[in-house]
């Protein structure tokens, strides 16, 4: 379960999608998310799904991995779909079966619609995570939010915190595995019992994990000081971003997708 969380799971690569300006990528993704809420028919979703398939192919990320991003939220999708079944209206699916009269075509349509929306939302937004190194991502966020620095918002500090958090996810996942195994070797039982018992069984994992996280934080702070870290002032950048032709192409593609979705909305 822990390993399935895709945050910070960057897939290094050399594809055009990877090479895009992260700021553009981020803005396009934001636009895409908004667009998914504008869509009001299945044809619109078809357009969005086509875009995602195209991006998957271009970015050379295995489709299986892309679909995996749905897994952690599968429960929410099913939950949403289930409740949407009741809010449909329209004619019942089984006219003759009395106790199934609540199941309507409209409900099924709604359920499918909402699930599709969430799935596309998840898949679409994890693309940024897959194809942008977290450092670039936070860099992009920092730059996009740059103007807020004038209002004394500590943009750089937040970006740095995000970078470090993402950097330590795999490390802490490994550590959790190790601690779990160590506790199992001592006879800890995580698999049986009711939910409260199981939650309690997690304490012997969480305590060492948090203690170790503090220790790591302290060492990391020393290591950062040794490398002359002094906040955001006077820093130069290793990565320089400039919009290239591929970014303009991406923006054009996104504009066309947006236009077609809106057209479909109006037409249907």
């Amino acid at each position, binding site marked *: 379960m822990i390993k399935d969380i895709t945050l910070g799971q960057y897939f290094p690569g050399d594809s055009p999608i990877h090479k895009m300006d992260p700021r553009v990528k981020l803005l396009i993704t934001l636009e895409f998310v908004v667009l998914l809420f504008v869509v009001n028919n299945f044809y619109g979703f078809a357009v969005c799904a086509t875009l995602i398939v195209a991006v998957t192919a271009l970015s050379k990320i295995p489709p299986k991995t892309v679909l995996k991003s749905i897994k952690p939220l599968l429960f929410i999708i099913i939950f949403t779909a289930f409740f949407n079944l009741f809010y449909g209206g329209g004619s019942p699916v089984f006219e003759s079966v009395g106790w199934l009269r609540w199941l309507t075509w409209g409900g099924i349509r709604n359920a499918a619609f909402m699930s599709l929306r969430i799935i596309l939302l998840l898949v679409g937004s994890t693309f940024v995570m897959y194809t942008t190194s977290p*450092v670039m991502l936070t860099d992009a966020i920092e730059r996009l939010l740059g103007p807020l620095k004038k209002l004394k918002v500590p943009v750089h500090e937040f970006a740095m915190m995000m970078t470090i958090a993402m950097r330590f996810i795999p490390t802490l996942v490994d550590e959790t595995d190790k601690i779990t195994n160590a506790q199992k070797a001592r006879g800890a039982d995580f698999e049986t019992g009711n939910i409260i018992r199981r939650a309690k069984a997690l304490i012997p994992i969480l305590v060492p994990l948090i203690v170790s996280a503090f220790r790591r934080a302290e*060492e990391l702070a020393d*290591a950062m000081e040794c490398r002359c870290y002094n906040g955001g002032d006077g820093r*130069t950048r*290793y990565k320089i971003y400039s919009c290239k032709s591929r970014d303009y192409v991406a923006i054009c593609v996104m504009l066309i997708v947006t236009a077609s979705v809106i057209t479909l909305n109006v037409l249907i």
Partner: protein
Amino acid sequence: MSEIISVENLSFSYGGQKDTLVLDGLDLKIEQNSFVAVLGHNGCGKSTLAKNLNAILLPTGGKVYVCGIDTTDESRLFDIRRRMGMVFQNPDNQIIATVVDEDIAFALENLGVPHDEMVKRVDEALAAVGMSEYKHHAPHRLSGGQKQRVAIAGIIAMKPQCLIMDEPTAMLDPRGRKEVMATVKRLKEEQGVTVILITHYMDEAVQADRVVVMDDGKIILDGTPEYVFQNVGLLHSVALDVPQSAELMYRLRKYDIKVPISVLNEGDCVKVLSELLENKIDYKDGAFDI
């Protein structure tokens, strides 16, 4: 050769003046481009000394000068830290970025190095530790030895004059240890870096030009490896081992067998032993039932 580090009567305690002293009146001078190993059991103050050398910690008493700069001079803090690069034990806790080259650039970004220069230095640093082909890899997928070399590259990119390493091989497997030691020695030879290596491994200490042994916040032995490892009894008394060949010679000498006192590596040891056996030196019965 001139001195790069000069420690004068340094004392240090974590809790201010009243607390017990971790370092107690320590004097140490280190020459440029030397390779100094610092030995001592846990809690003897080795790491505290290291952190005093690049102003992560400041002396409670006494003075520390690096490249002629007083470490308490706050206005030159970054001058000090840039010159005294420090590598820690756990590579996982010193790598900040999620891609190798971005991590190496971290210090350069902090120092405000211009972009073109930065790209050049990142490539140079990666080449210096032999990790060029891993430039775009994610650090958490590298082996321990490779991670530690990335951490070293991150420091080397600052072009430090001195590399302070606090047990850099303690968490590595034998192969990783070899990689790291070979890298460090090459940096010393090729780039003229001064190396201060804090270690628990005697076979690493033997490779240094000079060995400093600490106990209880003081330096108790200081000299060439040959000299230091003669004092087997003293080293044992402060809970330290000596290299196995030195230990063997020490025990043989206990039985009045005349072997040279400073034999530090296997090759020399084999030579001495074979000479000893060929010459059929008269030894008492049971001399080898140690």
